[in-house]
């Protein structure tokens, strides 16, 4: 597992049934592009988060493929429909096989 990887997500605590909400996510990750060279001129191997998914109660909201052109500490913002009370599940997939997860509950007003 890459060091110092910490996912953060921002989701409202409650919403009206059927409301569209904004979700913001950030994960601390160096996103080494595979384009940079070290002091000896050797290419530093690529090491990035290559995929992110967000689901709500098992249904998909968004599935994103990330490439090395995504900045350090990948930030992703999108909108979700909240049909009922439940839980958002966030998953980040690292090049090294690690999987990072977070989840957030939301209630209906």
């Amino acid at each position: 597992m890459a060091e110092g990887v910490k996912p953060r997500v921002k989701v409202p605590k409650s919403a009206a049934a059927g409301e569209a909400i904004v979700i913001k996510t950030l994960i601390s990750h160096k996103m080494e592009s595979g384009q940079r060279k070290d002091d000896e001129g050797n290419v530093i191997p690529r090491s990035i988060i290559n995929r992110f998914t967000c689901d709500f109660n098992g249904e998909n909201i968004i599935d994103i493929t990330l490439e090395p052109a995504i900045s350090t500490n990948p930030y992703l913002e999108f909108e979700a429909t909240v049909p009922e009370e439940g839980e958002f599940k966030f998953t980040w997939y690292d090049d090294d096989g690690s999987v990072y997860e977070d989840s957030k509950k939301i209630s209906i007003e």
Partner: protein
Amino acid sequence: VVGLPLRAFAVTGDEAIAAFTGGAEVSEGDIKLTAPEIAENGNTVPIEVSSDSAAEIMVLAMGNPEPAVATFKFGPLAASRSASTRIRLAGTQDVVAIAKLEDGSFVKASSTVKVTIGGCGG
């Protein structure tokens, strides 16, 4: 041993677009790409894509060593076909967004971003 040409490994922006569209025609239409005109720091350039009827949106930085940036696939609970992120740009170049719409057609938007300090340096 004969070295393979570097070209064999690098996928150009046009090749990435062809792989995404399967060679289908790409027109102007229901897609919006928001990017700054000038980015002082190419390491983190905010962009937003949106479309009312996209199933997927691919973003490319045509002047980067690897043009692919990200592909957004929208699921049944996506409230809008839009997303924002921050990207790296190696220098001044065109950023392109191509959407595959629900009817299977493709539309494109592009925006030139002037970069003061490149974001792929080594």
